[in-house]
């Protein structure tokens, strides 16, 4: 028997006992409640499905078949999402109640089981309904196939195909599906995805507009004007966000909260934003918490008096320190309640913790965490722990925060209710796009938030612009598979080709005061890594060049042979505290874009003008600095020659960019279709290489005894903050590689898979790793797999995507695990590939002449 430490209390005995009992009852009640909720939501969903079916039937009578069809499809989509939601809810409930059963050994168990069974029954009825739906959908699809007005029909087909696809995913594909149509639908799916976000923003905007024009604004805030925002208020918002998966709702919750903050305690807005995105400062300042799990567990153990052993056991089971911290506390009655946590206090403590270093800093960190933990009430501990871990895992993407910020600013204007609904919608959309674009230019909330508070959206535009010294996220290129794709994409558009150098992206900033900085692809300050380049920078500029931001590629260079060395050589350079005299690997800078020049942002200028300025205000220096080699011909033969030439010059391939017009602007942080990359090895197999995170390994046998024989890889889902297993890999390693990987990775072995690893049944490696290493991988193609979980839910509701014949290319030290190829990209690659095959089979296009 072991005991739990209670907190010091001087209450009347009964109070203490009673509160204890109450809290027990409370939890039990809650679980029951949620079960009931789930059940009732099941039945409502069922009811809606039924009414919807009725509706559809009625509408089908309508003479205007086109419109009817459209509506029907929409209704089906709605019903489907309702159904899917219920299923997820069911699942959640099941899981939850299972946990309750596991952790609760009282009589409730039986009751719970009954509930679970009920829920199961309900979900199976729902599945029947779903089958009905699928059948109806198919009938509808046939209807749609008959000729109608072309434009309307295409929309119908598009929407229909989504339904059809979903139907297919339900595993009911016996009836022959129109493959070309599906391909078409998939082709558009991407566009839809892109539009989706815009549409969502629009919807929310409309909703808010609606609310504001109709009713008086209800104050939802739980604190008084001028007081610091209580941490509990933020945690409550987090909780609401965590409980939903709908992006609209998430945005809605956050906007509501931010409005309260702006109205009552505007000085806390910046901290609230930082806590919501779980950062302490702009990325380029590089301040991180650096707290390991063991330290957090220690803090929990010490502050609650529970044994470390128990906490470790809990962690192995639950896998979320937040939950553990919360549960370790939740049945502790207190009388001498410490003061409630406030946002400024929490944020300041977090910053203090991050700044601690040196002797006994670990102990001081634990002490500070303990102090926070002791003051935590209810759910606060959960989110505090997660913040400390650096993973909120509530499904709040940073771009949602940016949009919410913009909308909250607009909606907290004093005279906002006087605006007409249409105007308000427009304002909200405008605000979101302005803040987004400003943020991509100037990714620094320290400047954006005060500017917004001071001068609203208009003021922001004026006050915050691209500023040398603050790195912006680089623009990225889309991979292509064949040269003909380029011609397809850039038909009737002026474009240019550049060498794609095999090095490291470098953003060189020179400020008006003469100081200079070099930033990496991830906005890290690399000035210390390249002291040699820093010294030479002045030689590269002409006298009139006072301030600038250059987009470049830094490449390892052989001075004797005058040739480019592969990336692997560059990566052998020391990363920190490089002294100039020790440098062995020389670096050549190839500049390909100019983003800012003498006080003027060039982001909105077309590439042709940016390039002109670049060429006329900078000097090429032999062996040190040059402009990326380019060619403007639009003849496919010339491009082919240029590509061959680039490969001969030790480059990776080509970049193809639009040259003029609106599409030729620089789009920070976007993987844009206005930039395409053609790699030499694209033209066979799957286009781009993929960067994956190593999460596990299999013990080596035979020749590989003593090292790991194979590895389990995962891609990253930034939306859900999960790593999803994608494939095992065992080829492409040299013996040296294997040894090096073994040495490096054994440092990162963890006893259990992390709770945010999403794994299939069959992928259980012999050892697990913490997510630290990113590898570049190539593969033959992608396939849907029941075993792996990459992009699960995007292409198929239960199956993921896996790689066929993966092989190891190299380590990507320049990428953090969070920058690994995302599930979305994997899904996109998969559908691109499917598209191509369909096209090929149909004999449409793709010239297969240049097969490398």
């Amino acid at each position, binding site marked *: *028997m072991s*005991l739990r430490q*209670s*907190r*010091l209390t001087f209450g009347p005995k009964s109070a203490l006992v009673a509160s204890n009992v109450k809290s027990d009852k409370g939890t039990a009640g809650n679980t029951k409640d949620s079960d009931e909720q789930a059940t009732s939501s099941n039945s409502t969903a069922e009811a809606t499905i039924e009414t919807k079916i009725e509706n559809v039937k009625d509408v089908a009578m309508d003479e205007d078949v086109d419109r009817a069809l459209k509506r029907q499809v929409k209704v089906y989509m709605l019903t489907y999402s309702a159904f899917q939601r219920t299923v997820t809810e069911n699942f959640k409930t099941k899981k939850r109640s299972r946990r309750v059963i596991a952790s609760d050994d009282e009589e409730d168990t039986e009751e719970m089981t009954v509930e679970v069974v009920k829920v199961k029954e309900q979900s199976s009825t729902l599945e029947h309904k779903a089958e009905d739906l699928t059948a109806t959908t198919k009938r509808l699809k046939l209807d749609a196939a008959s000729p109608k007005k072309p434009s309307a029909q295409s929309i119908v087909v598009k929407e229909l195909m989504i339904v059809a696809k979903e139907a297919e995913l339900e595993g009911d594909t016996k009836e022959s599906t129109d493959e070309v149509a599906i391909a078409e639908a998939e082709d558009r799916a991407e566009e839809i995805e892109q539009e989706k976000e815009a549409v969502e923003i629009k919807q929310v905007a409309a909703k808010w507009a609606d609310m504001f024009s109709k009713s008086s604004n209800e104050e939802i805030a739980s604190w008084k004007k001028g007081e610091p925002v209580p941490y509990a208020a933020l945690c409550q918002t987090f909780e609401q966000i965590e409980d939903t998966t709908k992006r609209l709702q998430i945005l809605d919750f956050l906007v509501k909260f931010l409005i309260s903050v702006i109205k009552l305690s505007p000085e806390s807005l910046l901290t609230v934003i930082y806590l919501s995105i779980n950062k302490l400062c702009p990325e380029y300042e590089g301040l991180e918490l650096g707290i390991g799990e063991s330290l957090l567990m220690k803090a929990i153990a*010490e502050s*609650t008096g529970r044994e470390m052993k128990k906490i470790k056991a809990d962690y192995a089971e639950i896998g979320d320190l937040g939950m553990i911290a919360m549960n370790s506390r939740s049945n502790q009655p207190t009388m001498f309640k410490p003061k409630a946590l406030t946002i400024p206090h929490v944020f300041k403590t977090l910053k203090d913790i991050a700044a601690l270093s040196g002797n006994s800093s670990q102990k001081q960190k634990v002490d500070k965490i303990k102090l926070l933990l002791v003051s935590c009430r209810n759910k606060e501990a959960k989110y505090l722990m997660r913040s400390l871990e650096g993973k909120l895992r509530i499904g709040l993407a940073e771009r949602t925060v940016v949009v919410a910020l913009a909308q909250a600013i607009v909606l907290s204007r004093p005279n906002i209710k006087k605006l007409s609904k249409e105007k308000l919608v427009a304002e909200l959309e405008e605000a979101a796009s302005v803040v987004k674009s400003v943020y991509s230019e100037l990714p620094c909330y320290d400047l954006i938030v005060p500017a917004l508070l001071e001068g609203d959206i208009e003021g922001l535009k004026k006050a915050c612009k691209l500023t040398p010294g603050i790195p912006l996220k680089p623009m990225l290129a889309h991979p292509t598979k064949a040269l003909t794709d380029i011609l397809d994409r850039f038909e009737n558009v002026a474009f240019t080709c550049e060498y794609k150098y095999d090095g490291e992206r470098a953003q060189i900033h020179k400020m008006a005061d003469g100081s200079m900085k070099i930033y990496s692809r991830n906005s890290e300050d690399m000035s210390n890594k390249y002291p040699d380049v820093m010294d030479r920078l002045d030689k590269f500029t002409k006298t009139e060049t006072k301030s600038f931001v250059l987009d470049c590629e830094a490449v390892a260079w052989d001075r004797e042979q005058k040739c480019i060395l592969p990336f692997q050589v560059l990566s052998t350079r020391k990363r920190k505290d490089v002294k100039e005299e020790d440098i062995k690997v020389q670096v050549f800078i190839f500049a390909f874009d100019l983003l800012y020049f003498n006080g003027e942002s060039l982001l909105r200028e077309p590439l042709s003008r940016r390039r002109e300025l670049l060429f006329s205000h900078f000097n090429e220096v032999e062996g040190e600095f040059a402009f990326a080699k380019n060619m403007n011909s639009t003849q496919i033969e010339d491009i082919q020659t240029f590509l061959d030439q680039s490969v001969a010059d030790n480059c990776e391939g080509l970049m193809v960019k639009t040259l003029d017009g609106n599409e030729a602007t620089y789009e920070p942080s976007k993987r844009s279709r206005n930039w395409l990359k053609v790699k030499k090895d694209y033209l066979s197999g799957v286009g781009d290489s993929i960067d994956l995170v190593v999460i596990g390994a299999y013990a080596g046998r035979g020749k590989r005894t003593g090292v790991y024989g194979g590895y389990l890889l995962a891609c990253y889902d930034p939306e859900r903050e999960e790593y999803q297993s994608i494939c095992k890999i065992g080829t492409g390693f040299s013996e040296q590689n294997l040894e090096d990987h073994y040495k490096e990775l054994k440092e990162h072995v963890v006893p259990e898979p992390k709770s945010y690893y999403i794994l299939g049944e069959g992928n259980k490696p012999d050892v697990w790793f913490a997510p630290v290493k990113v590898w570049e991988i190539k593969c033959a193609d992608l396939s849907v797999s029941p075993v792996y979980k990459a992009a699960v839910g995007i292409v198929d509701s239960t199956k993921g995507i896996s790689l066929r014949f993966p092989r190891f290319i190299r380590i990507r030290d320049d990428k953090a695990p969070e920058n690994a190829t995302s599930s979305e990209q994997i899904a996109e690659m998969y559908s691109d590939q499917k598209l191509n095959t369909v096209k090929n089979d149909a004999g449409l296009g793709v010239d297969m002449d240049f097969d490398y």
Partner: protein
Amino acid sequence: MLEARLQTGALLKKVLEAIKELISDANFDCSDNGIALQAMDNSHVALVALLLRHDGFEPYRCDRSLALGVNLTSLSKVLRCAGNEDIITLKADDTADVLSLTFENTDNDRISEYELKLMDIDSEHLGIPDTSYDAVVQMSSAEFLRICRDLQVLSDSVQIDVTKEGVKFAAKGELGSGAVTLKQSGNVDKEEEATLIELQQNVSLNFSLKYLVNFTKATPLSSRVSLSMSSEVPLLVEYKMEAGYIRYYLAPKIGEDN
């Protein structure tokens, strides 16, 4: 203005040793009644209440109530510079941004003066209700120290059972288990070592040994210690001094942790 002269400086040194492990910063609340301190540990599991009554000092002067925010680690470092035989004088102005300490050694006419910077500590005074306890055990403080240390080998918590017959300390851990029982004794010869029990009702409570061992740092202050217990109420461990006391409160461990 505070001026307090303590004939036996060793007392202050011992007091600091007794609390500095538990608390890092605290306010010394000075009034005409004496110097008091009350603070909880970081985890809010234990509370220390200290009182040095005015009659323990000679002379003692405090015109207006003062709160001196002190980092106890720093204070104990400064006090290490004082000899055991030294007379210690504490002084502070009403503005109270420093605490001056004077150590006088009468034997060799040595006078040392130190100033310690004070800090603002935000703390609220907690009202501790008067409680009539179900069981009060008075025992030798050295014996209590020994029991806590011995049992700590086995477990991190101890179960204390008090009955008419005596008081039993029991610990159970992975190594095994152990128990120490002290019988109620009217040992008149050795009054210092006697175990006296006042009992309204049997009690059985669990406490963290880590904290109890921490409390026993006050053993040098008094040869006797009293443990006052009622179920579901914090344990009171009190060491009485000639002019004052040091009291520790500790919340019991509750419930099972599976």
